[in-house]
């Protein structure tokens, strides 16, 4: 068979050295790093915007920026952090780097599609940010773009926002197709599904969600753009349209999007905990079924975001029950992580600190999530800072903590050098204190009725808001030790060796950084990626081919 070969590695188009990170490289490791670095740049931009929000909210009146500017800033902050930082980094970044190793492949199933998916992101991000400088200003309707608000705010910025999100959604779908095909079809001969590292299952579940739900958002945004550009009335009540339909379609994507952001983090933390606790991952099979249960339930709970949108009682009942059920598989995972740590020989390093803090933050965010699923409580705190606090405990306390943990864990694999532990612990301490100081008071603010998305508030809320702003300042400072660490270590850090953690997953069974086709010889067949404990001392020696 002479099939045109999409994986033709013999073609001499790959530049070497640092230039390859700016090229249309087909190497999954280069693409992974591209996602990570690009995402981190957007994290800094989104963080600066968050800083503007917290400075504005340090006083009850609108003094630092105008109200319109505040709306633009919060819209850009939400969109950038979700679509340009968390989703690309935790899926595209670590996924592209690790998944081919985990399935024993030389690259992803569709390397060109992979590169295309990445290179859709920088233009989309620049488009989004440039909309700030448009005449009539950037989108002001929040990351949800609810009509009729999104139909009455300046049109040009909103249309550019839609275009940008469509590009990012397309990128996410292409990436998801690649992950599904790689995990299901590119496994090394002899490797069974139930022997895969947990991150593969997390990425499979995430990608199924992305394939099923992202297109619905794309279709919805196309209809919204028709409403703005062609003055149709899909979501415009004055023309006979229906705003609640937009909310249903939007949340059909955007609730699964929470799992698209957090399931990969579950997978990553399931890789990190066994290595640094020197114990097998507890309850592998229940972990797998929990992920798939979350995928299924995640698709049928969207209307719990809409309890105040005139939803009928049967709908409220169904979505409350379905949402509460998600606590079951999530709880199973949570206890599995605790049981993995239990009795382990725990190394308290930066990766482990962030991973353990993730468990703590996530269980808190999870409990407020179950509370929010209950209709009477939700109606009380809907659209208040309680929701903001809950959400940030999930995506920052959950996913971003795992991203940092993963950075300390895999940086030696990326570069061959260990990140500095002292700076790492300083980074952790500042992040952990800053994060809790910033978002914990928001729960009280919300319970007492401070609405979200406003530049001005009742002066009675001033003290808690100022505490929150101090926390945000600490989080801003916390990026300094991280940046210094990552940049300086790349040139002067301690040499890590191929496998500094004596880990058993396949990415460590090659050199650091790995060669272009991942292994010099055949890919190793790792049937027991978490076999810590029983044959421990011999492992590290035999593990290196």
């Amino acid at each position: 068979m002479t099939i045109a070969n999409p994986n033709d590695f013999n073609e001499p188009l790959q530049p070497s050295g640092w230039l390859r990170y700016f090229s249309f490289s087909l190497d999954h490791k280069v693409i992974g790093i591209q996602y990570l670095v690009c995402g981190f740049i957007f994290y800094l931009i989104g963080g600066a915007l968050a800083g503007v929000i917290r400075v504005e909210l340090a006083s009850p009146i609108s003094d630092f920026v105008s109200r319109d500017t505040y709306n633009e800033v919060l819209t850009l902050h939400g969109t950038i952090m979700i679509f340009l930082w968390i989703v690309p980094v935790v899926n595209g970044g670590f996924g592209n780097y690790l998944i081919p190793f985990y399935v024993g492949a030389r690259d992803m199933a569709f390397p060109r599609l992979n590169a295309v998916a990445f290179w859709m992101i920088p233009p989309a991000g620049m488009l989004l940010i440039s909309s700030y400088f448009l005449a009539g200003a950037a989108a002001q309707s929040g990351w949800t773009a609810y009509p009729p608000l999104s139909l009455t705010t300046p049109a040009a910025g909103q249309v550019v926002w839609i275009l940008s999100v469509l590009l990012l959604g397309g990128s996410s779908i292409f990436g998801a197709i690649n992950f599904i095909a790689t995990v299901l079809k590119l496994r090394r001969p002899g490797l069974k599904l139930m022997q895969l590292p947990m991150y593969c299952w997390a990425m499979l579940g995430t990608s199924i969600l992305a394939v099923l739900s992202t297109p619905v958002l794309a279709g919805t945004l196309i209809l919204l753009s028709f409403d703005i550009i062609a003055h149709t009335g899909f979501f415009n009540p004055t023309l006979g349209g229906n705003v609640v339909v937009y909310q249903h379609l939007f949340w059909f994507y955007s609730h699964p999007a929470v799992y698209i952001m957090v399931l990969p983090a579950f997978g990553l933390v399931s890789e990190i905990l066994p290595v640094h606790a020197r114990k097998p991952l507890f309850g592998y099979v229940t972990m797998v079924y929990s992920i798939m249960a979350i995928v299924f339930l995640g698709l049928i709970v969207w209307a719990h975001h809409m309890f105040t949108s005139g939803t009928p009682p049967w709908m409220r009942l169904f979505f409350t029950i379905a949402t509460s059920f998600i606590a079951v598989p999530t709880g199973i995972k949570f206890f599995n992580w605790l049981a993995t740590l239990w009795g382990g020989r725990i190394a308290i390093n930066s990766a482990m600190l962030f991973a353990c803090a993730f468990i703590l933050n996530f269980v808190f965010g999870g409990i407020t999530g179950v509370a929010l699923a209950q209709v009477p409580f939700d109606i009380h705190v809907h659209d208040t800072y309680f929701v903001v606090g809950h959400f940030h405990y999930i995506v920052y306390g959950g996913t971003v903590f795992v991203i940092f943990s993963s950075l300390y864990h895999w940086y030696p694999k990326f570069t061959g050098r260990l990140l500095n532990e002292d700076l790492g612990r300083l980074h952790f301490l500042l992040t952990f204190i800053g994060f809790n100081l910033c978002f914990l008071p928001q729960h009280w603010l919300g319970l007492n009725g401070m609405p979200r998305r406003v530049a001005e508030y009742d002066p009675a809320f001033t003290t808690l808001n100022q505490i929150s702003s101090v926390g945000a300042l600490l989080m801003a400072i916390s990026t300094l030790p991280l940046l210094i660490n990552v940049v300086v270590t790349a040139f002067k850090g301690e040499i890590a060796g191929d496998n500094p953690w004596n880990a058993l997953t396949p990415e460590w069974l090659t050199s650091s950084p790995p060669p272009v086709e991942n292994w010099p010889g055949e890919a190793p067949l790792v049937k027991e990626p978490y076999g810590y404990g029983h044959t421990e001392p011999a492992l590290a020696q035999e593990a290196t081919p």
Partner: protein
Amino acid sequence: MTTSPVQTASEPNPSPSGQANAPLSIETSELPLDHSHGAHLDVRMFGLATFLVADGMTFAGFFAAYLTFRAVNPLPPGSNYELELILPTINTVILIISSFTFHRAGKECRADRLGASRVWLAITGALGAAFLAGQMVEYFSLPFGLTENLFASTFYALTGFHGLHVTLGVICIAIVALQTHRGGQVTAANHFGLEAAELYWHFVDVIWVVLFGLLYLL
């Protein structure tokens, strides 16, 4: 904070293999790593099928929106959901026949009769173009425009999005037909392009049947 040295051998092993004292299972097998030969036909069709699931979800979103609009948003007085049925029915028949002609083209190609395959591809492409022409005639004969009412907007959005898919399909058919001609890009042994276009065409066809039922017959 270091606890007792870990010794899991005495406990049931929670790892998936279930063998508490299994020897270290890192080995290299003699099986070839088939990452760049042969198997890719399957993977590419699998990738395309996954993409079509995603594409189908876009339509599913549109259909759900349309049905909800229809259930809860009454049209303004004087408007109704009635549509002229003759032309769209002919169009439906055309599209269904084109699925069979495409299937025939694939069969001829696999039997190494590339000339016959090309003829059937040309017929399929012509039927696709006829469908698009019929759609155009229908658009120009309709009594309502895009912004007339909610049903009109939904009608044009749905049929337009589907028409976009048909247009893309006709372009793909033209490319595949040219590829049977030159350079051996589509041959009896190597016909991924043709099979991919065929799967896509059947998908577009099925979507139309659902769309026809929902928009015209309901």
